[in-house]
């Protein structure tokens, strides 16, 4: 579905991605792991059109995405839940969701209702401003907003960042449900243990390279992964 081949991204003199390749198949949850500065966020910036790769190709359902601009991704069926959630602070929950359906024509009241049934807490808060929500609620709203465009692939950038463990658990359950409903998920996370328990496959990044790729099951039991990301001594 999504095929990234040998992409190199540079910020001026600094090379952030040294030719990375990976793929995501329809219906999968794929996770991209790595420490701070490994290149995870750069990869997602590249995949949402915010930073074009210098060389290499990105293709989605056979279409070349290398030169596509950020705002065109939504229309192509890729929705991005940005790092730090990026809720519209002075719009209500409902208005935020409606903005999510911006690229679609016609009425989408049914879809808003569907989001509310996935996230009942958002229904209770529908008239509240985005800025008055808690971190977990904002994350749910950001995911709900991204789902409003009916994407075939959803990119999640650090959804667990700054949230309490119980809320993280909830968010990951929701990500599982998203896949059940037929949306493919690419999940970028620092929280390796939980991400690997949920995902089908995973890639581990280090210094702008992909150093490991395997099924989530195998990665979870890989010694190097356990040592570095799961905090267990060798």
């Amino acid at each position: 579905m999504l095929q990234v081949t040998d992409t190199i991204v540079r910020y001026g003199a600094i090379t952030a991605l040294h030719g990375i390749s990976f793929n995501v198949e329809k219906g999968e949850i794929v996770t991209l792991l790595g420490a701070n500065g490994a290149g995870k966020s750069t990869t997602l910036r590249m995949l949402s059109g915010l930073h074009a790769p210098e060389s290499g190709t990105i293709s989605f359902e056979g279409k070349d995405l290398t030169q596509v601009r950020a705002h065109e991704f939504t229309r192509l069926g890729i929705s991005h839940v940005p790092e730090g959630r990026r809720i519209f602070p002075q719009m209500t929950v409902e208005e935020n969701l409606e903005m999510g359906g911006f690229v679609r024509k016609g009425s989408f009241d049914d879809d808003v209702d569907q989001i509310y049934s996935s996230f009942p807490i958002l229904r209770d808060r529908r008239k509240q401003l985005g800025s008055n929500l808690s971190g977990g609620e904002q994350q749910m709203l950001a995911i709900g907003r991204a789902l409003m465009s009916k994407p075939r692939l959803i990119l999640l950038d650090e959804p667990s960042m700054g949230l309490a463990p119980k809320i993280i658990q909830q968010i990951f359950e929701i990500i599982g449900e998203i896949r059940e409903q037929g949306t493919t998920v690419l999940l970028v996370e620092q929280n390796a243990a939980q991400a690997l328990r949920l995902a089908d496959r995973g890639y581990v990044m280090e210094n702008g390279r992909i150093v490991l790729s395997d099924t989530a099951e195998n990665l979870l039991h890989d010694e190097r992964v356990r040592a570095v990301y799961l905090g267990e001594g060798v």
Partner: protein
Amino acid sequence: MRSPVAATQIRRFLALLALMAVVELITGPPGSAEEPTIGITRSFSEPTSFFGLFVTPRFVLFFAFTVIIYLVASLWRSQSTSIVAIWNTTTAQPRAFTQRRAVRLSTRGGLLVIAIVLPLIVTDPFWQSSLVEQIAVYILLALGLNVVTGFAGLLDLGYVAFYAIGAYATAWVTGALPLAPPFGIHMDPFFAIPIAIVLAMVAGVILGAPTLRLRGDYLAIVTLGFGEIIALFANNLNTITGGATGTNEIPHFTFHVGPVNYRWGLGPVPYYYLALGFVVIFIVAFSLLEHSRVGRAWTAIREDEVAAESVGINPLKYKVMAFAIGAASAGFAGVMTAAQTNFVSPATFTLVFSINILVLVIFGGMGSIAGVILGAVLVQTFQMFIIHTPPAGFQPQDLYIYLGAILVAMMIFRPAGLLPSRRRRRELTMAEVGKSTAGEILIGEQS
């Protein structure tokens, strides 16, 4: 320990008091080299008459202003919160909603009726022409800048450029410029209206497309430069614009259809009605726009551009659109001014002019159509008042000091403007509710 609410109130009052003291001293009697303190001492000793109502030293007068402004502002604040409370309870019931709609419609109708009969009440020639030149035209300009700054959140310091383009376009098509009019036909200013609006919008696109990738301060500087460039063109392209002297040969509007012949220019009143008609058209168009898909895209971009892109909004496209649409009403305002005064000259199109329009928008309430109209009416009336009939002890040349003081006072008491847009008012109410509960909790802990 004082409660934080009371502390805020005291801080606000002291800030206002300091502001008024500065204004009082600057605008007061001048000192001299021999007696540098005389300006200060005379503020306390020399009695000033205030509209002949009472005679008192200047400092008493300004102290009274301080107290009055403070009381009005405090009363308004407490009232507006209670209005919001009533609003919130009534919106729960659909019947109240239709009632509110009726109230709103009748308010608008009433204001329109007042606007229509206004020239019959205001008969003084100075004020009648001010109604057109200083108020109606500025309302048009404020409405347009509100689209750019209020709706789309773009700071434009060169907005006067579009007004200049409208005025010069009028001079061009009516044959008043050294540059030959299109096809050599001297047209009536009526035909300048669509031409000026289109030219202003095109200028908006030309300016916007390359520069709107910039954000915030950078955009402000580029637009400022654009305003200056247009003014320099007007000043120096002698063979096209007539140079520094401009032109004073622009004809009045005329209307000839069948047996109906009408010529504007016999007084300001016909122009007033023409302007009023267009003000209504622009109000309707801009408020429809505000609640359209385009308006929602502007709100999204204003609040968070990255998030707006992530839901599929092309920020550049909508920003250029805001520039072009905002330019339209300025273009029309240019036609109005040119035709009514028969005169265009580069001296009008200064940076101060752009800032004046921005003041109207900020004062009235960015993003609120009713707000910017109220802002334009009040600020422009105040300006005309100080220039035309200053009260004793007030000099017209101190106008900008008073305007500045009013703006500072606004920032202390109503930072979102007189009539902020619903979104911004909601934001303020939330903040106030948050603050007052925090205060109550603190007081509760004390007792």
